[in-house]
């Protein structure tokens, strides 16, 4: 909450402070003594067989933190979880990124990491889902799949031998993102979940919480579940379908107003949450969106100070009830 800059009046200030105090009191105390800064000693009750994980190093026989953060222990493994770090990719993360270059057989993507990521043409499903043929035409047509500045969503495949971070798109639901907003939030606010793709049916929008802090809010796109696709007709009908749908999309050039409003509302909810520094999950987001609609707030009013205060109070309330339940 430090560095929170909002023009609040006195009353609002008081309320925010109360809410924050409440939140602080609710946060688990156990970890508070485990936080370290760089060069802090990490006590390892003279156990010899300690495994030193990320963010630690050995210095003169002592285990020393190389990051600011919280010391985490798993059995004999000690590592430091950084509090506000840059995004660090892990295999299997779902991320959203922006194409910055189309290179031979690969796209280069900006993904909020210290280096750019690479999406190989071969790691990408073709738009109609058929198996790729290894021909030169494919390479020439790469721009028809993604161009510079396209926003796409992919999965982290891992660091390859050349030191590049490689991405992949396992199925049809990965790929180009259109008709929506890209938000940038601190990556540590995105909670790792089993699902990062969300379809908010009541609003007709898709929400992709990229682990790298890029969040996509956009119009819902129907992804054909590959398990259900009737492959029999794929050769002709499906392609025809695909053509139809794309052409239909082109004809119907705009997203319905309501959907657009929903997109903006959701995006603003995320903005508010991230400014306040709250963990972002789909549940919390829908809660905030609902709050705003129940208060009959206009979309732009969500970014006003009053709403921030309300959200903070709401969050404090939510957490305390959660606490009580336990």
């Amino acid at each position: 909450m430090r560095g929170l800059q909002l023009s609040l009046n006195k009353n609002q200030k008081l309320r925010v402070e109360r809410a924050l105090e409440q939140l602080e009191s609710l946060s688990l105390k156990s970890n508070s003594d485990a936080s370290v800064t760089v060069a802090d000693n990490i006590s390892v009750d003279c156990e010899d067989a300690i495994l030193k994980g990320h963010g630690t190093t050995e210095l003169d026989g002592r285990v020393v933190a190389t990051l600011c953060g919280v010391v985490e222990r798993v059995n004999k493994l000690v590592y430091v979880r950084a509090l506000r770090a840059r995004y660090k990719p892990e295999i299997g993360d779902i991320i959203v990124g922006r194409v910055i270059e189309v290179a031979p057989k690969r796209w280069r993507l900006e993904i909020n990491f210290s280096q750019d990521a690479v999406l190989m043409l071969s790691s990408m499903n073709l738009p109609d889902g058929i198996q790729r043929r290894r021909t030169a035409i494919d390479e020439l047509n790469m721009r028809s799949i993604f161009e510079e500045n396209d926003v796409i969503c992919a999965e982290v495949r891992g660091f390859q031998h050349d030191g590049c971070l490689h991405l992949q798109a396992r199925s049809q639901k990965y790929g180009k993102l259109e008709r929506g907003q890209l938000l940038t939030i601190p990556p540590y606010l995105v909670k790792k979940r089993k699902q990062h793709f969300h379809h908010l049916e009541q609003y007709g929008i898709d929400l992709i919480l990229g682990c790298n802090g890029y969040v996509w809010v956009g119009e819902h796109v129907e992804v054909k579940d590959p398990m259900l696709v009737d492959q029999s007709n794929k050769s002709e009908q499906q392609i025809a379908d695909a053509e139809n749908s794309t052409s239909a999309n082109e004809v119907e050039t705009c997203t319905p107003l309501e959907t657009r409003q929903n997109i903006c509302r959701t995006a603003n909810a995320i903005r508010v949450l991230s400014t306040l520094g709250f963990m972002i999950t789909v549940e919390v987001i829908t809660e905030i969106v609902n709050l705003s609609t129940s208060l009959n707030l206009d979309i732009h009013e969500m970014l006003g100070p009053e709403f921030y205060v309300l959200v903070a109070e709401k969050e404090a309330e939510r957490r305390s009830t959660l606490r009580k339940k336990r």
Partner: protein
Amino acid sequence: MKLLNVINGVNRQLIFFYNCKAVDKGEFHIKTSFCGGNHIGGSNVKDNVLCDFYKISDLLHNLEANMESLKRKLLEDTIKDSEAPPLKQHRENGLVGLDDSVACVHDVSYPEGYVPLNLTLANQEGVKPAKEFPFKLDPFQSEAIRCLDHGESVMVSAHTSAGKTVVALYAIAMSLQNKQRVIYTSPIKALSNQKYREFKEEFSDVGLMTGDVTIDPNASCLVMTTEIWRSMQYKGSEVTREVAWIIFDEVHYMRDRERGVVWEESIVMAPKNSQFVFLSATVPNAKEFADWVAKVHQQPCHIVYTDYRPTPLQHYIFPSGGNGLYLAVDEKGKFREDSFQKALNALVPVSEGDRKRENGKWQKGLVVGKAGEDSDIFKMVKMIIQRQYDPVICFSFSKRECEFLAMQMAKMDLNDDDEKVNVETIFWSAMDMLSDDDKKLPQVSNMLPLLKRGIGVHHSGLLPILKEVIEILFQEGFIKCLFATETFSIGLNMPAKTVVFTNVRKFDGDKFRWISSGEYIQMSGRAGRRGIDERGICILMVDEKIEPSTAKLMLKGSADPLNSAFHLSYNMLLNQIRSEDGDPENLLRNSFYQFQADRAIPELEKQAKVLEEERDSIIIEEEDSLENYYSLLKQYKTLKKDVRDIVFSRKHCLPFLQPGRLVCIQCTKNDEPSSSFSINDEVTWGVIINFERVTGLSEDDVNKKAEDANYTVDVLTRCRVHKDEVAKKTIKIVPLKDPGEPAVISIPTSQIDSLSSARLPIPRDLLPLESRENTLKKASEVVSRISKEGIPFLDPEDDMKVQSSSYRKTVRRIEALENLFEKHEIAKSPLIEQKLRVLHQKKELTDKIKSIRRTMRSSSALAFKDELKARKRVLRRLGYITSDDVVELKGKVAGEISSADELTLTELMFSGVFKDMKVEEIVSLLSCFVWQEKLQEAQKPRDELEFLFTQLRDIARRVAKVQLECKVQIDVENFVSSFRCDIMEAVYAWAKGSKFYQIMEITQVFEGSLIRAIRRLEEVLQQLIQAAKSIGETQLEAKFEDAVAKIKRDIVFAASLYL
């Protein structure tokens, strides 16, 4: 690859030389110079020689065809078979005329709601096939290829030798033509190597990926093991997006208890837009499999099934101790009952000494002949050679036995001098890649003399390189007699004229059982060389009595069905949970296991309905009291049986089963299924002749411990013999007074009611009818005489020294029950027997319905659902995943480990044990994860290692206990003892830098097994490196890398000859 080329080159030329010796003396020098060069072994020299050789081989290339024929002719000459069929060199010749009779079944499975596209065949006609074969295709081959041309998946189910590879080749050619990638998976690394070589020669754009080697992973056609393909799919390799065709060879491996699940995972996860080629041995339920594929992948899947064998088989029986072969099944598939009986009669009973197989160790009937007498196997091989049935493969079921049998061939020499020279040349040029020390390994040096005499051994305990040399020598015809284990029966086409089964039983982990018909089919598939032999010959060495029905089942039975062996593993769960699309439940739902279970439900439902109707139609008066009586009766019977079990357990009754003792036995009931309902069983008397241990059908043996029912008693008694139309004899024991023949029959000890103390003298020869009649007469006299004064039974307690408290308790309860019977009203009813019978029927029906309902319940629910829950619980408890199924750090580590027990190894890693250990110790400790064979007299490792091992066991125990607490079914002690310390010392020494011969002195294990273990160890280390990387522990990572460097050397990692 290079090496094999050389060998082939050498071989070709040597054959040429030795064929043309007389023709051209000039060439002869080259041969000698080559041999010389080879022995020097220096790389430069060798290369020069190689160059020369290629030149020469070019020069001689045009002569090759001649050489081939010359070679064949030579073979023919040596065979000197006046009746030898006209030799057909190539398959195209061999097949002509056979084609029309060769039928295959073609069927298609469509997914539900699928509308077949009416592909106009017209546009197919003009298209040139992707590959043309230089021979005429068999119907099943062209049928399968037609499916491929339509771009649809196909499952080809045919015998090993039938030529399934053609289909695979076509699929590869097709994909390459379309510039699409194709993957070929096989169950075994060695097979992958061989296939890689085969494909590489055919299409150049081929790569190989096994746990050991990776060659050109970007090639269009990739050969790999199924495990690699699975992990590629989990990791999301780019191949998965480019592969158009996936070929699963030997897909019947899916029923393998341990590894079968890998196939299911791979097939379920395979890209939705690729097509499949499944090659499998004959399986009766190919259709079911195809239905599954069609359902899971929503695409049609063709089935092409054929029973056809290019060379028909004749099955013979060789009775042990006998002298000749008896035809059991002729080439038309007819079972020869008469000659089968003759064979059994010729069976020389195993001498008394060998009968002592009681202590579990079941000595093979392959007796080493008494001094001066040849062993059976020797006689057999001699006969085969005399009759020119060679080359021959002798299958046996253990490595030791394999070697033991080969050793008995010491006197035999099957190769002439020229062949010997060739064998030696090939052998040494292969061994050339070994270091000098390794060349001196006993296994290497002992093998050569054997090979030179034309005798080979092939089993998994051999050094891989030796195994490959032997395969090559066998293919080239330098080995006339190969002793192999079952592993030789799968994979590359290596046929022989004759296949011998040295045993009819196989040890499958906990018992000796008959060879299954499926196994028999698989192994006998090696008999008969296409285009060379007119028919293949299978010889079954029988050393014990087999029922004709059993033999028929084995020899003529159908192939084993393809059943799912699905099971869950933590690694699988973690990988599924980890990926965004993955869902273990989805995998379960799509598994073949689930498919098979679902499919059975309607059938079960129907059965249950019918049975229920039947049950409800039975109406009984006074059912309640009758039921009461019935249950009492039941109790009484079980108690009686308990008593008998105690009294007639081996310990108690064996001393009293002397010949001549009068015994009271139960008569055979008239209506077999429902047991009699009177309190007293009908009994009769007989005279004991003999008793012996039974080795009946394995299925029956399983349930009984070696202690109790494994003995039969031969009893002389009166019998009524029926012969029904099938010429099957049914023998009934009848009371002595009834009409019937006196006969000696074997009965299980459980059928004895009681033993009397009287003994009769029995005549020596019971063969004549009168002597049996007389004995029985005497017996009945004795019985009638003594029965007046009460038959003197052997008292269990006083005479037979049965002194267990349970016995006394049971006897008391029987007495109490007998009292109850008297009080029972209904017992006096005259129709009681019939009534009881009806009630019994009803009860049986109810039981049946219940069991059907139970199976239905368990299969309608998602299979493994409970286990999945339990296993997830384990993962949560140990902190591998969070409560909302997000994989945590530990889970990521465990997800990397697929070649060892993932939980134990991860826990071991996180407990920090590795941190203080030396690299050698780490390697040594990890060896416990990869070694599964049980060693009898393994010595304990030294104290430091022992200490580490105890730590490992403690962790394993903890892991197992957590699993047990989470309701995963696991036997804690079994799990803990699955980690074995047998090779710790040897691996420690290897990591220390010892030579291979040195470590072989430390341990008794087979060379090949040790090498396999170390190679697998390297795989584990590679996975651990990845794991260490993911937790950021750089020191540990470096340690593992160091470990890899230390063990990856010399003979253990010598490249395959096929590469």
